[in-house]
């Protein structure tokens, strides 16, 4: 059990997908203008991450390796991720139409989020059990969601700061994200994997 906890802390904090491994930066900056939208995006991406990491692990172990078509790993994972994103799209349109409108284009964009594909590929290369893969996906989801919510809160506060003209908008968001990644570097060496 402790080992699984280490996997989650490792994926969420120590080598956080966004701030340490720099994966999934476009939705990270794009969807973090408002906190409500960011929380919605964090949930949607989290859902995709966990389901995709689970299913892709199964596809990898049950389909690709027995038929030794591992060279198709990338294509299969993209298919799985696309399906997961479509599932999330349906759920948001049905359950919370407002969130669907607020996120708008960003839900399909999750398919192009490199963190999602990253988790799937990392799971398949590192020989982990199914449970560990799921926990790894969950850890990545928590990490992505936490950092997205933090940045959204910071950017909402930065709106009131009188930022110099050339730095307004995305520039100040990147600088804030940069300082946050500095802070997250404090976790290096935490988990000796």
């Amino acid at each position, binding site marked *: 059990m402790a080992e699984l906890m280490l996997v989650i802390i490792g994926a969420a904090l120590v080598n956080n997908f966004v701030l340490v491994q720099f994966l999934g930066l476009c939705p990270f900056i794009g969807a973090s203008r408002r*906190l409500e939208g960011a929380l919605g995006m964090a949930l949607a991406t989290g859902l995709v991450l966990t389901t995709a990491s689970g299913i892709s692990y199964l596809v990898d172990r049950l389909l690709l390796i027995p038929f030794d078509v591992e060279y198709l790993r990338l294509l299969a994972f993209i298919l799985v991720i696309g399906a997961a994103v479509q599932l999330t799209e349906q759920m948001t349109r049905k359950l919370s139409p407002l969130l669907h409108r607020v996120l708008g284009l960003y839900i399909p964009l999750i398919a192009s989020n490199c963190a999602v594909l990253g988790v799937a590929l990392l799971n398949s290369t590192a020989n982990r059990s199914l449970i560990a893969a799921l926990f790894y996906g969950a850890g990545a989801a928590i990490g992505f969601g936490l950092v997205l*919510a*933090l*940045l959204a*809160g*910071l950017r*909402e*506060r*930065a709106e*009131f*700061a*009188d*930022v*110099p003209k050339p*730095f307004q908008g995305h520039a*100040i968001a990147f*600088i*804030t994200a940069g*300082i*946050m990644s*500095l*802070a*997250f*570097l*404090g*976790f*290096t*060496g*935490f*988990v000796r994997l």
Partner: protein
Amino acid sequence: MRFDVAPGPHTAPIASVPITMRRVLYALAPAALAHVWFFGSGFAINFVVATVTALAAEAAVLRLRRRPTRVPLNDCSAIVTAALLSFAIPPLAPWWIPAFGAFCAIVVAKHLYGGLGRNLFNPAMVGYVVLLISFPAELTQWIPPRMGDLDYQHLAFLAHLSYSLTGALPTDVTVDALTRATPLDLVKEGLRSAQTYSEIRAGSLFGGIAGRGWEWINSFIALGGLYLLYTGTIRWQIPIMLLVGLLFPATLLWLFDPDRFATPGFHLFSGATLLGAFFIATDPVSAAESDRGRLIYGAGIGFLTYCIRTWGGYPDGMAFSVLLMNSAVPLIDRYTRPRIYGRD
């Protein structure tokens, strides 16, 4: 007879930003003197360089943005940032370390967000972390305290100044001879290499509770902190909860296994614990705003500092945990708003 009409409450305000900042500087003064007394003039040189760079950078940015420079400059918040930065960096650091640190702190962390009151992160800590990550070598050149019985070599003031400015050392001295690891480093490396805590404590650099020299500096800092609490410059929520957040896990784990974990006393009086609790975390701009929020904010910093010190890669996690909790402040503020009178 006619009178001029002015709005609002007519009682004059009882506090002001410059007074607050100056009180923080007075509170830091005794610890600074102790620092110079124990570790030589390195601190003084760094402080002067940092202050000059900070003020120059602030003036330059304000003039660049065509903003009035007189009012922001004389609230000496830049000097407080420089002072905190100088406490964090080792005395034996070349001049461009405090200069670059102060530049990053003032320009990037403070004025890119619009000046005093608008920055999201604690400027001094941003400056220090940038230095720590970009120049790890220079940032570990700590020197042992000048105690009677310790026979380590020390640089005179002039030699120190020349090293800081030019990097040239007197002929018979090398940098490695001068530098020693800090008590925190010793404890972390020792515990990692399966030494028991009591064996490490037996080393010459350790005094009564924590590192020699550092105990005194930290007690003076605690004195300054109590002065701030007494004058109402800071409120008790953040310092107390930070110490609780740090010492509670420390005592728990120390009781659990005294050999593999340092004593709470050591944690309290070493590294930047007290400096962080009374001076860094209580920076009003980057801290949480409501009293309940400050409790969580302080406890968070203390706990994260303990985690980084015990399991993390860096010796003292105070800077990182302050920045981490700074980034959590907007969320903390949103969910710890006090209940308004008369509303459920």
